[in-house]
C-alpha cells in the first residue's frame, strides 16, 4: 500500500517530515483520519494534537495551533503558525 508523505511545518521551520501510514488531526468539525488515497482536501485545524502513525506502527504526536491541513495525492501537509512535537 502506498504511504502518505507527511510534513508538519510551522512558520519558522519544518517540524517533522517523513512517511506515514495514517494521520489523525482535529479540524474545526471534529477529528479526521487520513489514509493513503484520500481525496484532495483543505481543512482548518482546531488547536489540538496531530497524530501520525508511521508505517512501522510507531506513533508521533505533534501539537498544532492555528493552522490548516492539506491533502493532495498522498501528500499531507499540516501547516500551523505554531507547531511542535509533543
Amino acid at each position, binding site marked *: 500500500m502506498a504511504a502518505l508523505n507527511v510534513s508538519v511545518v510551522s512558520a519558522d521551520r519544518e517540524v517533522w517530515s517523513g512517511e506515514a501510514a495514517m494521520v489523525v488531526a482535529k479540524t*474545526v468539525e471534529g477529528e*479526521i483520519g487520513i489514509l493513503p488515497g484520500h481525496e484532495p*482536501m*483543505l481543512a482548518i485545524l482546531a488547536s489540538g494534537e496531530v497524530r501520525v502513525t508511521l508505517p512501522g506502527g510507531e506513533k508521533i504526536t505533534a501539537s498544532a495551533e492555528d493552522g490548516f491541513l492539506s491533502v493532495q495525492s498522498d501528500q499531507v501537509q499540516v501547516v500551523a503558525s505554531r507547531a511542535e512535537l509533543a
Partner: protein
Amino acid sequence: MGAQLRVYRQKIKSAQTTKKITKAMELIAASRIQKAQARVAASTPYSRAITRAVSAVATYSNVDHVLTTEPEKIERAAIVILTSDRGLAGAFNSQVLREAEELAELLRSQGKEVVYFLVGRKAVGYFQFRHREFEQDWVGSSESPEFELAKEIADAVLESFLRDASDGGVDEIHVVYNTFVSMMTQTPTVVRLLPLEVVEGVEEPDATVQPLYEFEPDVETVLDGLLPVYIESRIFNALLQSAAAKHAATQKAMKSASDNADKLITDYTRLANNARQAEITQQISEIVGGADALVAAK
C-alpha cells in the same frame, strides 16, 4: 616635527581607527548573513505549503471572497515599506525608499490615494523629516524579525483592507522590500499582496489533473482562515529576506569602507614620508647654507 607632518600622522591614525571599526562590523555582518539566510531557508516550507494551498483554492473556486475579488474602483492603496533600523548599509534603504516613491507615483497617476505602513527606523525617519503622514510604523526588530511582528503587520494591513473605503480603508496592499539575491546583490522588490494576484507557484503546476478539493467546513471559512495566514507568511518571508539583504549590504558597505581606509592610510603614509624627507632636506640645506655663509665671511 613640522606641522604638515603632524597633520598627516593624525590622519593616518584616525583612518586606522576607523578601519578597525569597519573591519569589525564587516565580520559581524558576514557572520549574521549566514544566520539570516538559514532563517529564510527554514521558513520556506511554510510559505511553500501555504502558497500551494492558496493556489489550490484560487484555481478551484469561483467563490466571491472579499480577499480575492478585485474591487471595481480602487480609491486607496497601502504600501508597506520594509527598511532597516540602522544605516551603514550602502544604498540598502535609499533604494527601497526610491522604489516605494516610484510605486506611489504610479498609483497616484492612476487616481489612487496612497497610505503608508512603515517598518524600520530608516523609513520612519525619512517620512518624519519630510513631514509626511503615515498610518502606522514598527521599529526596533528589523535585524532578526520574529513571526509575531509579521503577524502584527498583517493584522494591521488586513484590518484596514477590510474596512470600507469610505471609512478610510484601503483596497490594495503592496509591499516594497529588498530581496537577497546574492552576497553582492540586493534588489528592491515590489509585491502586490492583495487583491490576490495569480500566484507564481513554487512547484511546477500540474496542468493535466486539477484535483477537485474538498473543503472543511466550507470554502468561505477555509478562505477566511487561509488568506490572513497567507498574508502573514508573505510578510514574514519579506521581513526575513530584508534582514538577510541588510546584513549582506552592511557587509559590502563595510568592506568597501575598510578598503577605502586602507587606501587612505597608504596615501597619507606616502605624503607623510614626503613631508619628512622635505623637512630633512630643508634642514640640510639650511646647515650647508649657514656653513657656506661662515666660509664666505672669513
